[in-house]
């Protein structure tokens, strides 16, 4: 591993052909090169043949397509589960409501039956898919008459929309992002393809989007595009993409502090760059404007036609009544303000609880494990505590990326911030773990990313994340895909429980330190033991949730470790320790805790 230098400029050095990024090892007995883990073996023929990217990338895309599509053969959330069904029904319902109702009704329509509570881009996306679906078969999206339908062809259509959206957004963005990282870190094309496959075979994303049913990859894809633009040195594009990310799912706020800190940082360091600062501000505002423009145009149209709001609409929206000055109903901008405040009110449901269901974060672990019961506290106290803790946790990464806005630090900063939000913030779902996983998994495409240490840490976070979602996946009857996809991924990456080869590498050769090895292996042992216990030992009658609680606690602990690791790596890579004189320059990688 090259010693990280303090300057943002990294000298380009031509790699020797045998210098590997962790993909190739030497066989001890025969002294011949061999793949370091099974995924590399599948790329072995491409290495000797020196295949062009025009062939390898389509092949990778076809392979990952097959695994995604075959996962979607399985049931989706809420399949034949009245009365509420699940996310599948929610997405289908949004399609029918957007194509059948006037735009002013979108954010007012019945909240009880999966009311639209995502930002406008999701609404437009639903509208577009709904229009296509309506062409294919109108009965799938007949408002009020199609609630909870489970037509087999509808499933094909809906599954196809997820995959099509992913291949239009996430996949190209991932390819670009990996290419930018390869350029930045001087990784050769062959090893980047290995990393790209490893990133695209993330089991958590496949299981949630193609098994459980959601469109996370659209949001994650926009985030990848944001990252790729930042890496490519195009901050203005990154603003547009980040607004799209936020505009698709408000959960992208997990990334927002780091993105903002980085963008602010590049305007101030190494020297003040006023035009860039203004450019970023203006482009961001314009993008937000563009995001809400269709909604406002729709409102203008409905006002012109004098379409009334739904009769059950609560007027004015709570957010509007909180405005300092009251707005007259006669004002020309009144309907627009109503729409804006109502949509924001829907998107950010402040009234909901601290955490939902069982999620492996700090609050849920604290509460359910019985260490400290939280339901005695007032909701405002809890939300303030959550806010304070989150701010504390995101402060170090954001400060670092602000002071040292270097491209190679970006994945670490994004991952650390997102982990902080996941662990400490308010109103978190178990599926939100996909957000911190994405930048962390991107590390595979960086320098030494496929060496034992990083590979083991990324694999650890991914496996743990899937494992914490197991109770959710069991409800969706996705037990078998869970085992297959996580098992395959750990096998391909040469990680536990399939292989411990990554843990036999010594710390000097790019392996993990003893402490990390102990943490990892004990967590893996815990996960395996938990699966056996959950399958064969019924929970005691007085504690029916015992296994779920055990899952939450171990998961929260593991994620906490992931947060600390990302933060540590960020601190270490940024070189701030040597700046402060805590460690000696250049020599610090010897003491590194991997």
């Amino acid at each position, binding site marked *: 591993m090259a010693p990280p230098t303090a300057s943002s400029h990294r000298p380009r050095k031509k790699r020797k052909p045998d210098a590997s990024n962790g993909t190739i090892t030497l066989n001890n007995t025969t002294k011949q090169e*061999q793949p370091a883990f099974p995924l590399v*073996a599948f790329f072995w*023929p491409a290495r000797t043949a020196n295949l062009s990217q025009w062939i390898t990338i389509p092949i990778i895309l*076809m392979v990952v397509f097959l695994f995604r599509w*075959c996962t979607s*053969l*399985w049931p989706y959330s809420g399949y034949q589960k009245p009365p509420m069904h699940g996310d599948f029904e929610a997405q289908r319902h949004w399609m029918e409501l957007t194509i059948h109702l006037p735009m002013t009704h979108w954010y007012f329509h019945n909240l009880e039956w999966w009311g639209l509570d995502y930002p406008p881009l999701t609404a437009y996306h639903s509208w577009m898919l709904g229009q296509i679906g309506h062409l294919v078969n109108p009965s799938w999206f007949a408002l009020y008459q199609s609630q909870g339908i489970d037509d087999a*062809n509808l499933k094909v259509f809906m599954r196809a929309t997820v995959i099509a959206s992913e291949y239009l957004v996430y996949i190209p963005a991932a390819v670009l992002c990996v290419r930018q990282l390869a350029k930045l870190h001087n990784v050769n094309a062959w090893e980047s393809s290995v990393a790209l496959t490893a990133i695209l075979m993330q089991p958590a994303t496949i299981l949630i989007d193609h098994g459980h049913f959601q469109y996370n990859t659209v949001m994650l894809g926009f985030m990848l595009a944001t990252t790729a633009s930042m890496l490519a040195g195009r901050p203005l594009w990154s603003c547009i993409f980040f607004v799209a990310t936020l505009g698709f799912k408000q959960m992208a706020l997990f990334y927002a502090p780091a993105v903002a800190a980085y963008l602010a940082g590049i305007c101030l360091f190494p020297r003040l760059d006023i035009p860039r600062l203004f450019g970023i501000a203006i482009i961001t505002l314009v993008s937000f404007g563009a995001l809400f423009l269709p909604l406002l145009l729709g409102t203008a149209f409905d006002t012109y036609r004098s379409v009334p709001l739904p009769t059950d609409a609560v007027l004015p929206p709570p957010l509007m009544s909180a405005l300092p000055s009251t707005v007259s109903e006669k004002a020309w901008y009144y309907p627009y303000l109503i729409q804006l405040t109502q949509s924001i009110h829907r998107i950010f449901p402040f009234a909901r609880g601290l955490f939902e269901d069982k999620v492996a974060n700090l609050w849920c672990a604290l509460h359910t494990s019985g260490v400290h019961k939280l339901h005695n506290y007032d909701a405002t106290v809890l939300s303030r505590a959550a806010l304070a803790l989150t701010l504390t946790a995101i402060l170090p990464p954001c400060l670092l990326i602000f002071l040292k806005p270097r491209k190679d630090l970006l994945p670490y900063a994004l991952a650390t911030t997102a982990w902080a939000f996941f662990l400490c913030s308010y109103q978190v779902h178990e599926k939100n773990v996909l957000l911190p996983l994405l930048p962390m998994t991107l590390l595979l495409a960086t320098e030494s990313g496929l060496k034992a240490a990083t590979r083991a840490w990324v694999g650890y976070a991914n496996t743990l994340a899937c494992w914490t979602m197991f109770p959710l996946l069991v409800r969706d009857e996705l037990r078998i895909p869970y085992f297959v996809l996580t098992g395959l991924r750990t096998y391909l990456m040469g990680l536990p429980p399939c292989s411990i080869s990554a843990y036999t590498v010594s710390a000097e050769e790019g392996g993990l330190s003893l402490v990390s090895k102990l943490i990892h292996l004990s967590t893996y042992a815990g996960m395996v033991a938990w699966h056996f216990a959950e399958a064969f030992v019924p929970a005691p009658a007085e504690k029916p949730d015992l296994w779920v609680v055990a899952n939450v606690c171990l998961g929260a602990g593991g994620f906490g470790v992931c947060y600390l690791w990302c933060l540590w790596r960020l601190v270490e890579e940024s070189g701030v320790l040597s700046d402060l004189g805590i460690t000696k320059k250049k020599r610090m990688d010897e003491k590194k805790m991997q």
Partner: protein
Amino acid sequence: MAEHYPTLMQTAVAATALKILLWPAYKSTDFEVHRNWLAITHSLPLKEWYYETTSEWTLDYPPFFAYFEWLMSQAAVFADTAMLQVKNLDYDSWQTVHFQRATVMITESVLIYALYLFIQSSPAASKKQSHAAALSILLSPGLLIIDHIHFQYNGFLYGVLILSIVLARKPSGLLASGVAFAALLCLKHIYLYLAPAYFVYLLRTYCLGPRSIFDIRLANCIKLGVAIGIVAALAFGPFVYYGQMPQVLSRLFPFSRGLCHAYWAPNVWAMYSFSDRVLIYAAPYLKLPVNYDAVNSVTRGLVGDTSFAVLPNITPRMTFVLTLAAQIPALAKLFFQPTWDNFVATLTLCGYASFLFGWHVHEKAILLVIIPFSLLALKDRRYLGAFRPLAVSGHVSLFPLLFTAMEFPVKVVYTILWLIVFLLAFERLAPASEKPRVFLLDRFSLLYIAVAIPLIAYCSLVHQLLFGARFEFLPLMFISSYSAVGVVGSWIGFLVVFFTS
């Protein structure tokens, strides 16, 4: 010795993952067929197996396969006992589906083992090629579509076939090879089509001396005869004892079926039927007599008697004679040059002959050609030239087996992926030939592969947009005729290569 990557095991693990994900996929009536056989063999005494008719899917495989089902039914008890009741027609609880799908995958390990032996037994110079060929068989879209979606046990059966072929590579394994093949025949009698090649090869290399054909090695003859006799006795003995042989044989060889299967297999008869269809419209101009009773029956091609409107009708006897006639030249060559390569080539040609001229051929039988051919495809570039159109047409011809929307992307993407990966790999690995290549054949295969893309697009999408549900036989007929051209083309190419080398 350098290991080749990805290894067989690594590939098998990744393929297994994908195959498990396919468990909830569409399954054909063959799934119910095999469930019924599990039930029959588990709940009825042996003497009723071949008489049971509760389900329309009666037991029509030879006894070893019935024993095989019996063996699996012992494990099925732990999955779901309801599947083992003969009366439970069309029973498919998830336990049943998972159990039966799992048995397909577990028994496929015979194929993996056979391929492992195939790589091990190939000479060092061609190990790399053998490795690629083995992977291509393991990942074959044919096996994926037929076994893991449609539902059959071909992975296991072809595993036994390859095992037998590989055993025949060394003189010490010839007896075992003969026994394995005899056992295979008692598992599924479709392999009878390959029996002539085995007969000639074993006769020449095992029963006759290497120098002269008049040097009869009596001890070997007796050993082989006794061994095969034991296999046959194990299989058919109980039924001979109960005096049920006529019933068993009538189940195994139902000649009452039609010339063409429900979907036309891409063989000579498909082209024949196609010509007949065309001739119906041309007949008035050519002043040919038309049999109007037949006009409305051929297009549906349903199981039953097929009659032709213009062309003369075909009898089972004619197909039998044609099949044998097509096999004889290759057998003659094998008889005089009994090398292992010639043996595999003859097996391939026997497969071709039976597929092209056989009676009531299923499109699935194309594996009978593709799999032995795969073992030879990397011998040199000339063989590869003949293999290419077969790889495309053989697999495309399987597409109509799966007609559900959900499985459509799987079959198309998987097949295209396989074709890209393996045709590229084979292209790089096949050594140049000593003999000049047949220029025309190369151009033919390129053109042929290029036509596949618009054809698949038309059949799967454009046709439905243009005509809706009308003329639904048209895409089937196009695919079948297109594939028939490919299979026949590759057959001719292979004949040229085989007889000129």
